[in-house]
């Protein structure tokens, strides 16, 4: 080839350089670009006592379930119940682990399905969906008669806090949390028995027990070091127990002095003491949730902050005689504002009915069926977790962890706290406060004082950032 024009080598070389253009991930983003979308809904059916939401009896229902820790067995069961009730209707039940990748284009295109379990790592941001008017108000469902008892409304059959969690601003209910999670300090009764100990009710007792365990070569605590936002599962209710609910409300409201509250300081210092005295399992900051749970199952550490899904998730590594238990956080001392038993419990598995769904009544009716006693009992049996329906546990043979969770709920009574920062400000809670504050402190890299300063700084930034939708208690 001549030396003046494009030679083969040059061509290849330039192509290679041009290939760099193809690098960034931007291209992938716009592939889900915006589109129009038609808004034709199915006709409503006839409202009767058996069909209070006036569901069209022949209309199809498209139901997307998140195929995660709870599997899809319970959804199949619910689908059958729906089809039994409306024999002419059919439910297209679809399962995916990737909620966002699957459904985001359909929201953008204006053709979302009728019911979505918006859960998992690829959860769509609920605040944005609400802000952009993409969801159906579920108030008709809340005011409909409940599935088993027509005299009671659905909203009166729910566990505490579930209805409020579905609200963002004002009265409309945008989200129905189906699972009910109990957070707290998880332990093995067998292990405590071996140490001849009971679950410590005060922090002094906690430290004493950890010291005792340390002598036997057992660590006091471990946690999901790679997901340090598990730490708040026991730390937040601890704050509330020391200083009252207002402490958590101030954090949720992103108040300018939320983290400067003495209860926050006391709580953080107590946890930091676990690190300083060497009561945290060595290497914990490098463990993920499964690895830390496994270490805990193997008896390397006594306590782990976690949620009630842990029993199902760690089934394979849990020894038979483990006797899993959950307890509310130990108190600090006798000046605590809330009694021992103060517990974090809240809804999980957020179900939404999109605003542009073709059959929104069907979506709500499916939820109404799921919130019935039979479906709830089935869920509890299949995945050993509670549902938002208050009850359905009677007569069931519950596994030890879930059984202790039910007892913990009973003991807590009204003293259930529900920090909303977790669903209102995901980035702030999980990444900024979770990883960069608590994670760093528990690894001993920053002091409680620095933690407070950082957390307050992140909170202030979030309050001032107008690209984030803000909420108030």
């Amino acid at each position: 080839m001549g030396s003046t024009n494009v030679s083969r080598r040059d061509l290849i070389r330039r192509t290679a350089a041009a290939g760099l253009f193809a690098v960034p991930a931007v291209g992938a983003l716009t592939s889900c670009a915006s589109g129009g979308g038609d808004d034709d809904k199915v006709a409503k059916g006839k409202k009767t006592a058996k069909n209070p939401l006036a569901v069209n009896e022949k209309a199809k229902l498209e139901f997307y379930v998140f195929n995660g820790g709870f599997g899809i067995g319970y959804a199949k069961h619910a689908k059958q119940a729906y089809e039994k009730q409306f024999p002419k209707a059919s439910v297209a039940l679809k399962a995916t682990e990737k909620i966002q990748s699957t459904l985001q284009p359909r929201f953008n295109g204006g053709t979302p399905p009728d019911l979505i379990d918006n859960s998992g790592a690829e959860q769509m941001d609920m605040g944005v969906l609400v802000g952009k008017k993409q969801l159906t108000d579920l108030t008709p469902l809340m005011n409909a008669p409940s599935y088993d008892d027509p005299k009671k409304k659905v909203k009166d059959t729910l566990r505490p806090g579930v209805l409020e969690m579905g609200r963002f601003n004002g009265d409309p209910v945008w989200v129905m949390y189906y699972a009910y999670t109990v957070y707290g300090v998880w332990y093995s009764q067998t292990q405590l028995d071996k140490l001849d100990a009971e679950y410590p009710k005060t922090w002094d007792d906690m430290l004493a027990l950890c010291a005792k365990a340390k002598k036997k070569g057992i660590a006091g605590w471990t946690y999901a070091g790679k997901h340090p936002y598990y730490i708040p599962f026991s730390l937040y209710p601890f704050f509330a127990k020391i200083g009252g609910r207002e402490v958590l409300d101030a954090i949720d409201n992103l108040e300018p002095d939320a983290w400067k509250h003495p209860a926050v300081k006391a709580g953080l210092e107590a946890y930091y003491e676990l690190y300083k005295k060497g009561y945290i399992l060595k290497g914990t900051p490098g463990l993920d949730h499964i690895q830390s749970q496994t270490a805990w199952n193997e008896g390397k550490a006594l306590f782990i902050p976690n949620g009630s899904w842990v029993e199902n998730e760690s089934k394979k590594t849990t020894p038979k005689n483990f006797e899993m238990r959950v307890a509310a956080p130990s108190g600090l001392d006798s000046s605590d504002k809330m009694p021992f038993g103060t517990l974090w419990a809240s809804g999980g598995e957020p179900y939404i009915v999109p605003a542009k769904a073709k059959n929104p009544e069907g979506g709500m009716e499916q939820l109404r069926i799921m919130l019935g006693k039979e479906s709830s009992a089935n869920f509890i049996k299949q995945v050993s977790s509670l549902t938002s329906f208050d009850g359905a546990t009677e007569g069931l043979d519950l596994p030890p962890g879930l059984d202790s969770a039910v007892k913990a709920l009973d003991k807590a009574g009204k003293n259930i706290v529900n920090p909303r920062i977790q669903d209102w400000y995901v980035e702030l809670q999980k990444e900024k406060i979770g990883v960069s504050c608590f994670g760093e402190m528990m690894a001993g890299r920053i002091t409680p004082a620095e933690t407070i300063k950082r957390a307050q700084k992140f909170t202030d930034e979030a309050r001032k950032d107008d690209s984030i939708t803000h909420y108030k208690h």
Partner: protein
Amino acid sequence: MQHGKYRFIIGFLIIPVAIYAMFVIWPFVQSIFYSFTNWTGLSPDFKMVGFANFAKLLDDDVFWKSLTHSLVFLLVLPLVTISLALFFAFMINVGGRHRRGAAVTGVRGSGFYKIVYFFPQVLSISIVALLFQFGYNPNSGALNAALDGVGLGALKSDWLGDPDLALWCVMAVLVWCTVGFFVVLFSAGMASIPKDFYEAALLDGANRITTFFRITLPLLWDTVQSGWVYMGILALGPESFAVVQIMTVGPSGGGPDYSTTVLPLYVYVKAFRDGQAAYATTIGVALLVVALAFSAIVLRLGRRERLEF
């Protein structure tokens, strides 16, 4: 035969170029457009906001951290990987002791090494990342156990859980799984260098180091340069995203305390977790600028006279 040459070339290129324009160039144009909007990615409505996203970018600590880490990737990864690969390839092909009958050979067992180095290339990056995640496990991982085993227990560490080490741990994985490819690539390049060059050099009394820098490297320069571009793609692209996302601390990786976050990860997190697709495209535009600057520099540095042989 100059007449009609370009028409001939275009005739062949029209379909690939059209596809490239539609699936690469057009999305770029679109994303630059979206970077001036407030599109959430979760609903079809948005409005223009001018340079607001770019102003936010300048103030965003996490963005600057991601940018720094991506630049470190861009500098360190090609340098380390290509140096290592050149060394291995040289040892395999040329660096062996003189044996009778052949002036230049590889070290003993070089055929075997060539295959072994290529192994990681067969595994998908996500599997590699997962395997290394187990290896880095401070409690039961191979790395700490090995340190214990050889009596270096004092060097045990939290690896991915330690902000000072995490980024290096991640880079080590990328080096491990790409070095083999370049060993094979450079071996092929070295094989095409005529043996008499080496023989002449050896007769003149050159040692191995001199032959490497005076003969092998200059004649291999084109291949090295392509390798450099390819490593750049890898450092800014999906591979760096994958290892960081899978291996590191945090809800979507990048931790502890943002010590491992990289630009592609930050794009993903903003678009698909925080519902800020427009801001994500803004970060993407920044990534594009970095990529363009990198390719410009590589092409400029690489402009040398080529030896024909």
